[in-house]
């Protein structure tokens, strides 16, 4: 390396990923709101194939999870891994390859889903050409990320990098196995697994895509940006590490709770229940660790919108990770499976936890990248209340809808026959679907407000150049969980 080599942090790529994440969040939520409206007014697809519910809903989930969620995770991990390693990103050109490959995959992949290229395996609907593109981009991401850690100038690897690292490794494993398929044409492949076995593999993937992308990755985000924002060290570093291994070990087992009373072996289902309940411990350990970290900084909540979002996200994380294990119990699952309750549960996690912690992080990150304060704190505060109101309306309406569905579906009359026809139950859903649409629109309006706030914050500036600190970090000892006696 020459003496004049570039040493400053590669932050322009963080800006690029952040901008794309914001665009995808808006587009993904518009698609979601439109799909919700189609359940209220079924004629809204106007006979256009790509606008019909089955295709649009698939586009919605993929754009939100892989466009918004993954872009936010890759971007923030590139930001934090440099700062926790005190080095510039490893192979920036490869990082830019990850950026372009990923965004191109989302653009073309989103188009392909609306065009009807669809494997139908949940959260893995993209067809085989995109599966290969994702695998290549993901491995490149891993090389950049772990390459940066390997060249770090700080002693122990900081905990946020463990969680981001588990995201990279486990998603790679799940993605490759679940998408084993034989192509018949450019747009059509057949799964290597069939029937019950395909179902077990799919939910091993599906549950852990939620586990490691939507949970593990975002905990990585939490462990870097929460202490920064609260200006407090993590309450218990040791707890974060114990919870990490418990999380990585136990999440993987929980998939079969998506297949209760389905045609798979009972021992697989039972193991799924037990491990789902076990999962409560690491989940709440992380939640408690986060809340206690803020405990000395409650005053900041009055003035700091970013911290407010992160704390509310923690509350929803606690709620969703309590509800999850409960829904995994077979006798509860009988009532919740196949109903809107599942949809509500997913959104308390996706909106309440993933979106809110990302928004909080962006409210901290974008002013840092732009080198000037947030354009409007008032807009951010309004966003906070719109988001909270939207989520509450969404979850409560889906709880009501889900419970009504299962009670009506399972109700038998005095002669032992089903009491309500299916369409009776569809009719009963109308008010809930309308409420949910209102909730979704409230949340979307908050997101639009944020996008505009961010645009104005960044208008007329470029990403600030930051050099890594030269000194050996003073917090080296404090960061180590294992202090010598």
């Amino acid at each position, binding site marked *: 390396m020459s003496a004049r080599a570039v040493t400053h942090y590669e932050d322009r790529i963080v800006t690029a990923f952040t901008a794309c994440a914001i665009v995808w969040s808006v587009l993904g939520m518009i698609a979601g709101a439109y799909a919700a409206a*189609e359940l209220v007014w*079924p004629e809204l697809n106007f006979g256009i*194939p790509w606008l*019909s519910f*089955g295709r649009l*809903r698939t586009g919605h989930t993929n754009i939100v999870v892989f466009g918004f969620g993954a872009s936010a995770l890759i971007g923030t991990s590139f930001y934090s891994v440099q700062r926790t390693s005190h080095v510039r990103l490893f192979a920036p050109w490869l990082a830019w390859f990850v950026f372009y490959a990923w965004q191109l995959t989302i653009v073309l992949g989103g188009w392909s889903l609306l065009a*009807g*290229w*669809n*494997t*139908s395996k949940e959260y893995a609907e993209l067809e085989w050409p995109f599966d290969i593109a994702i695998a290549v981009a993901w491995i490149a991401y891993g090389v950049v990320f*772990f390459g940066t*850690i390997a060249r770090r100038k700080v*002693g*122990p*690897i900081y905990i946020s990098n*463990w969680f981001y*690292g*588990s995201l990279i490794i486990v998603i790679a*494993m799940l993605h490759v196995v679940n998408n084993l398929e*034989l192509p*018949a*044409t450019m747009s059509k492949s*057949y799964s*290597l*697994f*069939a*029937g*019950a*076995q395909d*179902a077990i*593999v799919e939910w*091993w993937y599906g549950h852990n895509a939620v586990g490691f992308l939507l949970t593990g990755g975002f905990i990585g985000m939490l462990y870097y940006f929460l202490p920064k924002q609260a200006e407090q060290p993590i309450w218990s570093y040791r707890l974060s*590490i114990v919870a990490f291994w418990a999380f*990585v*070990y136990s*999440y*993987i*087992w929980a*998939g*079969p709770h998506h297949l*209760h*009373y*389905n*045609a798979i*072996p009972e021992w697989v289902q039972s*193991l799924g229940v037990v491990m789902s309940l076990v999962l409560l411990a690491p989940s709440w350990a992380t939640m408690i660790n986060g809340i206690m970290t803020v405990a000395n900084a409650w005053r900041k909540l009055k003035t700091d919108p970013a911290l407010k979002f992160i704390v509310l996200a923690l509350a929803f994380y606690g709620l969703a990770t309590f509800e999850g294990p409960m829904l995994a119990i077979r006798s509860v699952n*009988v009532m919740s*499976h*196949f109903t809107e309750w*599942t949809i509500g549960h997913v959104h308390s996690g996706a909106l309440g936890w993933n979106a809110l912690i990302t928004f909080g992080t962006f409210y901290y990150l974008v002013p840092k990248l732009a080198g000037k304060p947030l354009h409007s704190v008032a807009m951010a505060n309004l966003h906070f209340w719109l988001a909270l109101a939207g989520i509450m309306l969404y979850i409560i309406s889906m709880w009501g809808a889900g419970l009504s*569905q299962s009670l009506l*579906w*399972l109700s*038998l009359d005095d002669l032992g026959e*089903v009491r309500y026809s299916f*369409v009776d139950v*569809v009719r009963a859903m109308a008010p809930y679907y309308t409420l949910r649409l209102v909730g979704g629109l409230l949340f979307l309006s908050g997101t639009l407000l944020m996008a505009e706030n961010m645009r104005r914050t960044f208008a007329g500036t470029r990403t600030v150049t930051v050099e890594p600190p030269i000194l050996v970090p003073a917090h080296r000892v404090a960061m*180590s969980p*294992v202090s010598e006696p």
Partner: protein
Amino acid sequence: MSLLGLHKAIENNTGLLIFGILVVASIGGLVQVLPTTLDDSLHAPAPNVVPYPPLELIGRDIYIREGCSTCHSQQVRPLLAEVKRYGPYARSGEFAYDRPFLWGSKRTGPDLLREGGKYSDVWHRVHMTNPRAVVAASIMPAYPWLAQRAANIDGDIEARLRTLRRLGHPYTDEVVQSAAKSLEGKTELDAVIAYLQWLGRHAADAPEEHAGH
């Protein structure tokens, strides 16, 4: 090496951390998922369960393309109310030729595992073209484009059958070679209806408690 010593090594070594995560995250899959993928009893076809004929296969692939499984499950659980409503509960041997599985996770519309024979072809034709013409409160989208497209519009039925044969579906040469011909004059709507009528009618050893529909 003590546990804490091992941990100190892991948190200071990138390679060890990667390896540690990989090992710990693999245990669940190795104990729980791998054995089920190797369990022959889970993919042995039940008696009378045969691969989808070309028209039904195309219908199934269209069902997948349109995301029908977003709203319709194909998995009757062994609960009295479900057996009463839909028919015999699902057993693993019925799905031996389902690539991918279509059990679904949501019932915005009814379960379709036992749909075959419940309604006439004509009913389905009207329903798919305009659901509210036959079920006033239905919120299903209309699929008018299915009737306007030929079932074998991309001319790839042979490629589909050959791919499935490589995966072990016992299609004879005769079926593969005559497939394109057998689809002539059929629309995508014909294919979807054929698939819906096929559903659930080939599980001969259906459990006794079938309530009948």
